[in-house]
């Protein structure tokens, strides 16, 4: 159990690092990602999401009118809920 805990993957990720990760994906620094962009990154890069995971994330993150994800707000929201 201790090994699992020590393994990096379960460490909590600080907010600012998370923000920078999003910014890497948004080099133009628009402050948001389009739905297609997020889907592409999450399902093709890193350890890809399943379709269910993708849908779940989208349902919470997306702004339905503009079909974009304003990641700064999204992070802030999730962090509040977590605590």
């Amino acid at each position, binding site marked *: 159990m201790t090994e699992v805990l020590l393994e990096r993957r379960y460490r909590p*990720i600080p907010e600012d690092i*998370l923000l920078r*990760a999003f910014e890497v*994906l948004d080099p133009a620094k628009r402050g948001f990602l389009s739905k297609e962009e997020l889907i592409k*990154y*999450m399902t093709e*890069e890193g*350890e890809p999401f399943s379709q269910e995971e993708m*849908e779940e994330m989208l349902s919470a993150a997306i702004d339905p009118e503009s079909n974009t994800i304003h990641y700064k707000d999204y992070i802030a929201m999730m962090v509040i*809920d977590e605590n």
Partner: protein
Amino acid sequence: MGSGSSTQHHFAFQNAEKAFKAAALIQRWYRRYMARLEMRRHCTWSIFQSIEYAGQQDQVKLHNFFSYLVDHFTPSSHNERDFLNRMFTEERSPQDSEMEKSSDYESIEVPDSYTGPRLSFPLLPDHATALVEAFRLKQRLHARYVLNLLHEARRHLVQLPNISRLSTCYSEEITVCGKSQSETALRDLHGQLDDLIFIFYKNGLPSPERAYVFNGDFVDRGKDSIEILMILFAFMLVYPKEFHLNRGNHEDHMVNLRYGFTKEVMQKYKIHGKKILKILQDVFCLLPLATLVDEKVLILHGGVSDTTDLELLAKLDRHKVAAIARRQTAHSLVTVSNCFEKYAAGILMLPRFHQDSKADSLSLMNNAHKAARAGRSSSVPCSVAPDPKELSRQVRRSVDLELERCRQQAGFPAIEEKEEPVPSASEAEEQLEPTQEEWRQVVDILWSDPMAQEGCKANTVRGGGCYFGPNVTERLLQKYSLQFLIRSHECKPEGYEFCHNRKVLTIFSASNYYEVGSNRGAYVKLGPALTPHIVQFQANKATHKLTMRQRQDFSMNDFQEKKNQNYSVGGRFEAQMISRVEASALRALREKLFAHSSDLLIEFKKHDKDKTGLVTLSDWAAAVESVLHLGLPWRMLRPQLVNSQTDNMLEYKSWLENLAKEKLSHENIQSSLLETLYRNRSNLETIFRIIDSDHSGFISLDEFRQTWKLFSSHMNIDITDDCICDLARSIDFNKDGHIDINEFLEAFRLVEQSCSEGDASDCPRTTNTNSSACSSPGAH
């Protein structure tokens, strides 16, 4: 140029790598988040379930206590004896109900000003639909129509067999719903009526082509139980062949006393409430015990045992099995009363609140002797008095073992020989009471739960019925050539659950059972192939707005459901739900902790040999579990329950004091008394309701004193008469020495306040003796 392109490639590669890593980081974060959410949900779930089951155990213990008293308590005065008799004698006799005239309700006038639904019999489908609509609009059915409907329902039920039969030849599909009631916690939830309406909306109203089976537990806990009953009975009368009801363990007037249905009826119907409750007692016993579909699928509320005998169940007179929790009189249950004697002997031995004085040791020994003489309890030592605490420990352990053995022997099924039904003392009794075996068969059907292990053992958590394993299921299915069982009785997070190799399906139709967002509901549909098709849902405010008429306009295409059609999954919503449910669960848990403060203090001190006032956090967890026995992951919960620790150590005394501060105590009452009251509050409330046999809402001061005497002797609480008088004086008495039950409980914050204005913020728990204006809150 060459170097340029390689630099470009280099950058391109770096960018790609960065993007990859960034994506991976986001995914990792998200997954961790979801995992934590799931863990919190599961944890919260455990809290609610364990508290719920502990409460049910309480219920049965309480009634066991009453049985014991009936047999062994020596009333010191004529008054006391009468009082006891009044408390414990069943008034009803079947002859009465036969002779109940219809003038019972015909004499009730419905005023012209009444704007609620009006019923005329025989009922037509439109009436039933109109009733649903009316209730959705929060109208109330007049007592006259309630009684009329119940009379008609009773007439219909009387001619039904114990095991109803349904065939998919006649109805193309059969929908099975389990447990339509849900919990209204501290805030004003919409109530379980929503779920029922939702099911009709989503699945369609009952009709000759659309059969329904409702698998018990229609009442208690929510605030619309009577409305749900009315709807169910109305459809039952309109579509008698296609609409079936099975009895659940909550269709039992003793259970109703504790879990809120009795209170709901009295509040809503006041003077007519009594009549309604009386006829309901009958109606409940007349509900069929099970439904069989195509002779292949058995639908019943709880489960089965290794002695379940469908032929016996089909033959017995179900009308006789009234309140499951009411046991037979002492004459016919010798084994059981032995058992309780020992239990009580053990209780009397426990020096909970006594000082370690010589006199007290003597009195302890005297009690033991008395009990020993009366009850042949060999487990109680009769020699020189040892240290009372040690004694209590010994006795408690041996009593527990004895109790377990007695329980298994006395009728909660283990693998034992069938008991001969003991002949009752008089013929009259025999007519009124079921035999031991019949009683047990019914209890098993209504109270049992499946378990993963093979075998069959007593269901000690619920205090009735058994846990049955896969082999028991298999044997039963083979014996009667059945394909599988459908049952309810247990709340499941997803609304349903298969077990025993998909031979047992638990279906639970009350979403938000513990709290808003706590779980989904589900129902199951059976077609001619008898393959179960599960539909999940979670009712929310949105469904309120749709009327039945609108539903009929929707095409079937709109309701091709994938799973989770109406439930928006996704981080934020889910998280909010879970937070709310969690907060509720933790609050309940803190109350429980407070209610056991004294015991906890003792436990903590054990872990604190050096008297530093501190314990380690793991000691904290061990102590809490050994007192509460809830089997919860205390280490995980600790951060939510303990916020005042330094260096892994906890100052337990101040932590306990903080808990108490949340439960504002009344100035005149000692905190230990308050704690005792609080711990036993649902028992107390039930006792009060039993005493208030005319359901007036008032008990006399005398009855109140007697209650306290009985109760405190059982709990071995040292309360003097003066103390009781103090208690009484601190309540707002202004009614010729009568106590309004609610006022009393209110004064000690024993009843949960329901914020009826729908303000969802934490309900204030301030004690305010002057607030007699509070309307009766929803208790639990």
